[in-house]
């Protein structure tokens, strides 16, 4: 059999002639090998998309529709990855189409796509063309401008990046002032540094690292946004500029590994900074802490029913499902309950791929926010009497989900906590 000629159709290898037990089971010539009606469409727009670096896979879509039921945006609107292919086939380059900005690059469709059509590649490619033509929704342009000016999407002063330290209750060394190598360079990230709720996680992390005796430091005012969400939203030049600034800062100091709070930063440093010249060990904070779990000294019982939201850029897009769960299950008193959408099938919070900065724009095209849908699912899982917790491991989420808890009328039924906040709580003495 091995000597027989093979016909290679994508990745399916078919024998031109196959005889099994004396019976010829070779396929006959059929319509699959002739021109199909699909080629009657104009090809200019598809040629244009697939001519972009990253746009190539869109042509491979054969409209099977497996992507539609798993797409979180499809649940709340008239959008689906399959439809993008169809629109492009009909001559629409998507540059003026709101659909261009609805994808959160959560990767749920890519996971089930038999043809490996990947919006994480083609969305940024098409969006980049829209950005170059000046077709950027205003609120996204403002975030881009802030990132370019100040290195964070809020437009806050780079010097204020370390203001949260004052209330941490422990010493948080800045590597530039330390003057020696450290084991862990802790990349704090934007929302953890500046957002009122994000800062709670930063302070909790500082206390936990200190209690565990980790040799760590932060970059302080030299830290800039990792830029990953700007990249996925189509501003590749901005991503490169921010990456160059961070890589320059990383290069000034000696450290063993980089530990990050933000899955988007994890994705950037691990998968995209290497091509820009920086390579090193990167760990999400849950990955760094999970192996140390036996060293934790628990001082309080945290009697709560907790569910966990897998961040798209830690879970599905980078394959880490265990570390956050190891930590949660180690916390005394916590009962972990999974939501129906979990792990590989986790449901997007709506903040990725630029969604964090498109809230108003997206609201015009969907029936409810993805964060609101996710909160309803969490409430149905653990939220009954106010002891339910939606735990998270991404700095985009406390503010997104807390807003959604209020807007869905679930205030008082569930709370949102970063895993590090729960760990910190259990390591403190019980409140008297």
């Amino acid at each position: 059999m091995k000597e027989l000629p093979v016909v290679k159709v994508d990745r399916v290898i078919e024998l031109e002639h196959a005889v099994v037990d004396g019976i010829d089971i070779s396929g006959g010539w059929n319509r699959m090998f002739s021109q199909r009606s699909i080629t009657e469409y104009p090809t200019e727009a598809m040629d244009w998309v697939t001519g972009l670096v990253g746009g190539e896979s869109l042509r491979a879509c054969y409209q099977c529709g497996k992507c539609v039921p798993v797409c979180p945006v499809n649940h709340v609107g008239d959008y689906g990855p399959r439809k993008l292919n169809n629109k492009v086939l009909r001559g629409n380059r998507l540059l003026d189409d709101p659909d261009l900005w609805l994808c959160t690059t959560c990767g749920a469709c890519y996971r089930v796509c038999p043809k490996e059509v990947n919006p994480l590649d083609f969305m940024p490619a098409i969006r980049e063309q829209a950005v170059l033509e000046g077709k950027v929704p205003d609120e996204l342009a403002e975030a881009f401008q802030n990132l370019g000016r100040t290195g964070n999407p809020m437009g806050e002063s780079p010097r204020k990046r370390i203001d949260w330290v004052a209330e941490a209750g422990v010493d948080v060394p800045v590597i530039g002032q330390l003057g020696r190598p450290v084991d862990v360079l802790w990349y704090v990230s934007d929302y953890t540094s500046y957002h009122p709720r994000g800062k709670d996680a930063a302070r909790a992390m500082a206390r936990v690292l200190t209690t565990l005796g980790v040799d760590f430091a932060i970059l302080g005012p030299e830290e800039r946004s990792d830029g990953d969400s700007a990249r996925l939203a189509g501003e590749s030049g901005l991503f490169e500029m921010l990456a160059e600034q961070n890589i320059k800062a990383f290069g000034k100091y000696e450290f063993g590994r980089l530990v990050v709070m933000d899955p988007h930063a994890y994705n950037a440093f691990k998968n995209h900074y290497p091509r820009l010249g920086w390579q090193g060990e990167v760990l999400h904070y849950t990955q760094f802490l999970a192996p140390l779990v036996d060293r934790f000294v628990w001082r309080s019982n945290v009697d709560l029913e907790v569910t966990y939201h897998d961040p798209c850029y830690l879970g599905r897009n980078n394959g880490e499902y265990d570390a956050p769960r190891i930590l949660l299950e180690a916390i005394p008193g916590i009962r972990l309950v999974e939501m129906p959408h979990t792990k590989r099938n986790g449901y997007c919070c709506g903040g990725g791929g630029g969604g964090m900065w498109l809230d108003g724009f997206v609201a015009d095209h969907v029936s409810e926010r993805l964060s609101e849908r996710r909160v309803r699912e969490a409430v149905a899982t653990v939220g009954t009497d106010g002891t339910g917790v939606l735990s998270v491991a991404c700095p985009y989420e406390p503010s997104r989900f807390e807003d959604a808890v209020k807007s869905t009328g679930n205030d008082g039924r569930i709370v949102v906590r970063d895993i590090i906040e729960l760990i910190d709580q259990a390591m403190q003495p019980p409140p008297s």
Partner: protein
Amino acid sequence: MEFVVLVKQVPDLAEELVIDATGRDIDREWMTWVASEWDEYALEEALHLRDAVGGRVTCLALDTGSVDELLATCLARGADRAVKVGSFERPPTTHTAARAFAEALGTVPHDLVLTGVQAIDDLDGQLAPLLAGLRDLPHVSVVTHIAIGEDGGTATVNQEYAGGVVAEFAVDLPAVLGVQASREAPRYAPVSRVRQMMREPMDAIDAPAGDDGGLVVEALSVPEAGGAAEMIGGSADQVAERIAAILAERGIGKVVAA
């Protein structure tokens, strides 16, 4: 038609301003610079006008040592040419700036000169009138809704007054305009294009840098803080109740039955 836009940088207010040891200037150690908002409106208007009637947009900035990115951003937004004017150790007074731009306009062709009507570091709005005086050109300031006449020899502009009254002016070209607002928000300049433009060589024109009078700052001080803000805490219902009470107290809105 030759459009010329005068642009400058101002301190980025993302950083809190600190008064330096002399007490007459702000500390520049941590300062970063951004394009002046009104100059961005002037550029946006010039780009729209060029696209409507044809021609060229040239941006001029006094070279204070850090204007390459400012001019590259103008080019990234669609300006055709960027020119650095003179050489200055620090941002000069409006009088000196007007003298330098007047000199530059001796060699830069111009039918319509646009600049921001003011900037956060000079609320005097004098650049456009001073420049117009030096070049003996007509001038209108605080303008919106700029349009070029069909003959190409005039422009019409609006000035908005209190009470919703709008005046329309016709002005002979060449002229100088102080722009208050653009018809659309200034377009986004993609970083990759700005960086590409930074690599292009930029034109430069000599201009006098001597002090040319104007206002002298004698002292700077930080305004004293006024009344304290009330932070409203509690549940959503308690917050809503408190806001409703405040509004009722001040006679804003009316209370309807719950």
